[in-house]
């Protein structure tokens, strides 16, 4: 295999691995940067994306004990993958608004630790609810027919078409949100909020429309990540935490509050993971944590974090 081929191969792998992390990380990063709200329950949006998405695209099997005891069967709209990809961000956007109103808002004025605890608890509940209704076993979220199989890129190697589809979908979503934040009033509020923490400390400002919208947008992206990631990662209740931890690392590495930071952080984490898989596979799960530690030692605010660290 040519040098160019392996470089391109490395890049494509990195992009594919990074995509899901980035989609989940953006929402975490923005709510952390603007609202100073730390949201472990963000992973619940990913779970909603996976499970509701599965129900829209195919058929969701209810085999949990509670579902069985009340005779709940399988539910499926069977609308196909694209329908799920289109509907889920809207649903999770709405769920995000609800979460802002009923979970986040009562806790804006409470200490960080309470925010973490309550969102951790809610993630636990969502996870266990899924286990109770849908069941704990792994489900198959099969890829759409048009993205099955592999595509040969000539000398650049052969890739699963689904990987390329993930990269494409993620790019479009991230770019759209980036433009939205860069060129609209909502975005202005977000950028101002990230820079001026005093302002957002006032509850009144936090509850205004732009911040609500941004909470929803972050949730929508996490939901979309669930649809995109469903066919790659396992569909089990624990997968929420499984993506949450790397996404948090992306935020730590990239710096809080900026989309560019999340993208850079995500790509770096992806690159380290892929690089280690190729060269020292035993260490591949360890490497991303080590990266986070190193970045933090060198640049406590993260690579793209401009805000002075005053904690």
């Amino acid at each position: 295999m040519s040098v160019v081929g392996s470089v391109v191969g490395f890049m494509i792998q990195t992009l594919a691995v990074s995509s899901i992390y980035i989609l989940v990380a953006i929402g975490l990063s923005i709510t952390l940067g603007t609202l100073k709200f730390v949201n472990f329950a963000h992973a619940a949006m990913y779970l909603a994306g996976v499970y509701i998405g599965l129900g829209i695209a195919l058929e969701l099997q209810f085999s949990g004990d509670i579902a069985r005891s009340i005779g709940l069967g399988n539910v499926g709209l069977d609308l196909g993958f694209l329908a799920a990809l289109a509907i889920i961000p809207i649903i999770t956007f709405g769920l995000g608004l609800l979460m802002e109103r009923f979970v986040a808002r009562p806790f804006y004025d409470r200490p960080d630790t309470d925010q973490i605890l309550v969102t951790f608890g809610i993630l636990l509940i969502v996870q266990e609810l899924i286990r109770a209704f849908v069941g704990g076993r792994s489900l198959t979220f099969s890829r759409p027919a048009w993205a099955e199989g592999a595509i040969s890129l000539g000398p650049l190697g052969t890739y699963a078409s689904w990987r390329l589809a993930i990269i494409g979908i993620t790019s479009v979503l991230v770019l759209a949100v980036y433009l939205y934040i860069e060129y609209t009033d909502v975005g202005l509020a977000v950028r101002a909020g990230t820079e001026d923490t005093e302002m957002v400390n006032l509850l009144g400002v936090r509850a205004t429309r732009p911040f609500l919208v941004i909470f929803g947008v972050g949730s929508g992206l996490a939901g979309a990540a669930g649809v995109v990631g469903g066919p790659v990662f396992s569909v089990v209740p624990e997968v929420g935490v499984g993506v949450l931890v790397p996404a948090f690392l992306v935020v730590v590495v990239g710096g809080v509050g900026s989309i560019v930071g999340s993208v850079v952080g995500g790509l770096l984490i992806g690159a380290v993971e892929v690089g280690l898989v190729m060269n020292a596979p035993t260490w591949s799960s360890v490497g991303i944590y080590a990266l986070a530690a190193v970045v933090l030692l060198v640049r406590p605010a993260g690579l793209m974090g401009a805000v002075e660290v005053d904690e």
Partner: protein
Amino acid sequence: MAENDTQSRRDVLKTAGAAGTVGLAGLAGCLEGGNGNGNGNGNGNGGDGGSEYPALGNYPIEGDAATLGFNVPQTGPYQEEGADELRAYELAADHLNNGGGWVDLWDDLSGDGVNGYEIDYETGDTATDADTARESASRMIERDNAIMYSGGSSSATAIAQQGLAQQENVLFMCCLTHSNDTTGGDCVRYGFREMFNAYMTGQALAPIVTEEYGDDLEFYQLYADYTWGQTQQASMRQFFEEAGWSEVDSVPTPLGTDDYSTFLQEAVDSGADVLFLNHYGLDGSNSVSQAVDQGINEDMEIVVPLYNVPMAAGAGGSIEGVFGTDGWDANLDNEPTRVFAEAFEEEYGSTPSSPARLAYSATMQYAAAVERAGTFYPPEVIRELEGYEWDNGGIGEEIMRECDHQTMRDILVVRGLSEEEQDAESGRYWEVVEQASYPDAVGYECDSGPAAECELGEYGDE
């Protein structure tokens, strides 16, 4: 720590507990009465031959029911396997008390309890976590006075539980555990395994797969980076290289890996002819379906050395044509299989999986050994189990070896069916290519393979 001392500890605790019931009011009496060391057999010694044997573990049984502990994953990644095992355990307890199933086939068993005792059972949830499994088992031993416990749907939980068995002098009949270590480096006198291991899988697969795909091929291995994966990887290398193939590379995938694409890409780039995916359960479903997704089956042949039904169901059509092994199949044509599968189907309305048969069989084996020994006294039951040969378990002739407590037995080499041919109702996901038999095709001596590392420990009556 010597087993006798450990065991005496629990007896003392029980005694103390009994004394505690009397409460502080009885303190004066205790001052004179207690000797403090292992008098747990003072009372409640039912019809078990009086004081024939000294107290050991939970022997003698108090009352007229013997309690078994069924410790399976009811939550977590192996809960499907666990649920099927539990159904089989409960079925076995029912048959032992009331007849039916193998009880009617096996001469040792009466259908009227075991050795004069009714069979009672307690269940526990291992959550596929070694600590939880061990804690749950110790509750069964200590509080419920289980005389034997069984279960385990991963090597880690099995190894954790059998260590406890040895300490507490209570028998543990392993269920689903495929690691070489269970009856290798980590083997114990109080643990028994009917499941085959990775080593035997290698022996069974190599001749058939090499014959199918040809000589002098190059193979590439991905393996789950923990003990089971490592032993299986080593076994595959050993037996396929002995069969004339050569390994290009073998790469560990860390536990918890969800996305195998990078690993798989590396595998394709290696130019090897055959890819071994040494992953189990959920990981197995993931890696094989991602491999097919990535088009790897167009360039390479894929082998998944160890299969099970939930895993095949998860992978769906991806396993078409993929070779692997399993311990038993409900569609086998023999009487014990038919009897068990029918009883199971009648009770639960579904086809039993191979883990279910293991669970059923473990319970039956234990009960039969107790009947043969004429007592529940653990060392005697162990001696009955050791070296026992039988052919009425649905998978041909089997022998429980004395040297490492590993059953030498036949293994099914199977090949995945296409999505259209699969039938979830009857649990048909593959066709049986061959029943690799012991000792012709599989098996190893007591001084070789995993057995070489096994030291079983004491019976407890030395």
